[in-house]
């Protein structure tokens, strides 16, 4: 179980607990549950790298305590 921090720099900072095998889609859903937006409107980025939905967190090497950038589309 890892805890990922998602920040959109506009006031929304969320700490989400999830598994390493979860996909980005699942993460987005969890974020959506916490932030209140729709999960398909969320874009997770790290600088210019957009995290794709079908890839797991482990494959992206997202570890515990990593900061992800929260954007909306």
């Amino acid at each position, binding site marked *: *179980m*890892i*805890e990922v*921090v998602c*920040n959109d720099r506009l*006031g*929304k*900072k*969320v*700490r*989400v*607990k*999830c*598994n*390493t095998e*979860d996909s980005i889609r*699942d993460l987005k*859903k*969890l974020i*959506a*549950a*916490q*932030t*209140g937006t*729709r*999960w398909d409107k969320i874009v997770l980025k790290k600088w210019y790298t957009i995290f794709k939905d079908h890839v797991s967190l482990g494959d992206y090497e997202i*570890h*515990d*305590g990593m900061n992800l950038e929260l954007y909306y589309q």
Partner: protein
Amino acid sequence: MGSSKKHRERGEAAAAPGAGSGTAGGGAGPAEDPPPASAPAPASASASSSSSSSRHREHKKHKHRGGGSGSGSGSSERRGKRSRSRGERSRRRSGGDEAAAPGGSSSRGHGRAGERGAAEAEGGRRAKRERREDGHETATALKSGSGEALSLSIEETNKLRAKLGLKPLEVGTIKKEAGTKEDPMAADVINPMALRQREEIREKLAAAKEKRLLNQKLGKIKALGEDDPWLDDAAAWIERSRKLQQEKDLAEKRAKLLEEMDQEFGISSLVEEEFGQRKKDSYSSRDLQGLTVEHTIESFQEGETLVLTLKDKGVLVEEEDVLVNVNLVDKEKADKNVELRKKKPDYEPYSQDESVDDMAQAKPRVLLAKYDETLGGLRRPGFRLAAGGEADGTAQRELQQVREALRSQAQSLAGPGPRLAAEYLTPEEMSVTFRKPKQRVKRLRRKEKLLTAEDLLALGPAPSDHGDHGSRSRGRGRRQRVQEEGEGESQEEADEDPLEDPPPPPSDDTRVENMDISSDDEALPPGSPPVLEEDEAEQELQKQLEKGRRLRQLQQLREGGDKVAEAVRRLARAGPGLDADMGVEPEEAGAEPERKGAIVFNATSEFCRTLGEIPTYGLAGNREDPQDLLDFERDEERSVTGASGSDGEENMGWSTVNLDEEKQQQDFSASSTTILDEEPIVNRGLAAALMLCQNKGLLETTVQKVARVKAPNKSLPSAVYCIEDKMAIDDKYSRREEYRGFTQDFKEKDGYRPDVKIEYVDETGRKLTPKEAFRQLSHRFHGKGSGKMKTERRMKKLDEEALLKKMSSSDTPLGTVALLQEKQKAQKTPYIVLSGSGKSMNANTITK
């Protein structure tokens, strides 16, 4: 966090199912459709309760359930007051609360009544706390906005995950990274001492193990410190030595036995052979036979010893061995280098002096001998060793002797060689080349005798000699005249033909004449010696030649002389009446014989004939005026001019005569017609009238030059323009019509000298200078005009010229004089006042 949910829910118009304070429920709520609103309602209630419980989890759990519900209801009540939608929500919530309440407070049923009262009392307090908490919530909401992250607990997350259909969290694999950045925890202490100790122990163990093994191995060897019993004790030593001796004896016996056994089997000889053979392979001088030594025998001097070694050769090379002495090799190399360094010329075309070898054998002719070494390989000297490794030089010496003998016998083909020639003849040469010169001398002497003796006697009373030996002043002719006059009478009856006069020598040169005569009269002496025969032949030849020459000379002289004689005669006849114009007389003299039909060719006449017509003939004024001469005189002149050959106008003279006549006739005719023809012309017709007008000059017959078509400024397109090549006309039909004959100018146009003036005009009509005309032509020819710059310059120049022309001669370019006059008119004074400061003296005051 919960408050923020509430805020959001307030903003949402869509009916969201409860969960005002429940984050997860609230999150799930708006995300999901409104229809399943009732379903999450209890969940939301529970969520809300859970959320509130999560908030206050730390201190009051069970109390909060009731409190939570109470507060929830309280808060819902409050919210219900705010808005209707919220009221709906609150109703739902209250409904939910009520549903939850019995479920939640079932366990605390007994405390309910008391609690209710307390709850109510607390409710007020709770309400206050709620308010505070609300404010706190808002405060926290703001805080979260600044930096605090919202997060759910594990249970909440698991619930959420279950809702979403995800596996629950794997709690076991929580990383022990000793906390996050926010709350760092102390890591495990790494004890380096313990680590080192462990390492040391390990090493020690390993070393001990090795030692044990080594000791086991080496345990067998005796150390120095060990005691031998027999060293200290004599008896022991004796025993030991005895033992050793016994062993030796035994060994010997055994060896003997073995040998005997070998001998029995006959193997001993083989064994001996094996051991004995090594001595026999020695190398001696007899093995040197046949080896080559790569030096000349001469290099080995008597009394010295040289060590020869095998020459280096490649491993795989299978040539035979060669012996060399290292020092000699070096010396030879050094000599060769010295030779090379001398830089002798490579090519000597005449180097091969002898075509024959030392041994009297023909040397082959070698071409480019300097390349033989590089192409064929270096030829090394050498000799072979005979039996026993010996070699002697006797053979070489014998060869050398033979060579020398042959050389001495050789004959050279060079010959005596060139010598300076002697200036004087040797007696032998004298006898060989010259014949006897005596007769010649005799001959010459006789000739002289003839001249002096006989001649004088013979010519003494000769008629040719009147005692007058001639003088320069008299000239040649005079003598003849005297002679002729003396003989003239006798000859007048005879033919006047001057060619048949008897041949008296007309020249003063008596010696020549006399020589001729003497040569003619000379009779050969009959008794001439036979040696003179050769001379006679020559004499005869010379005689004939001289005769011919003399005849020719005489003829020429006679002719000349005859002509002169005739001239003299005429002079005597005509007297001083005629001019002494030798130009006329010879013509007349020449005319007489020519009248008789003989044509005399003269060099000068021929030359003059080929000269051609002399245009200035008759214009110099030497001739008499044609008008003064009477007809017969003209005829004479004409005949003279026509007939004379010396002036060389035979052909042209006849033609000029004709032309002159024709010209005269024409002149007459022309002058007659113009005077007469005026009036009848007009009556004849329009053409005649025009002719009259033209003659009078009433018509303008000059052709006006039309202004040229404006030449395009841009370059001519080359497609439109082509250069006509007249040589391209090559078909046979057109060629036939060409005139290939001799063309000559018309005779009528002889005096026609037209005054040709070609004027070129440019597009504006201006007459062009030759330079500009040529420029125009060349532009037309090349098909391209000038570039932009050039044309602009030209235009500018033309404009300037135009301006120049426009400029008034009497006034300045600015028209100052005119302005002055205007001003004067205006002021009505003959002057202009130039006064005031410079400011008033601007253009405005001066202009009109």
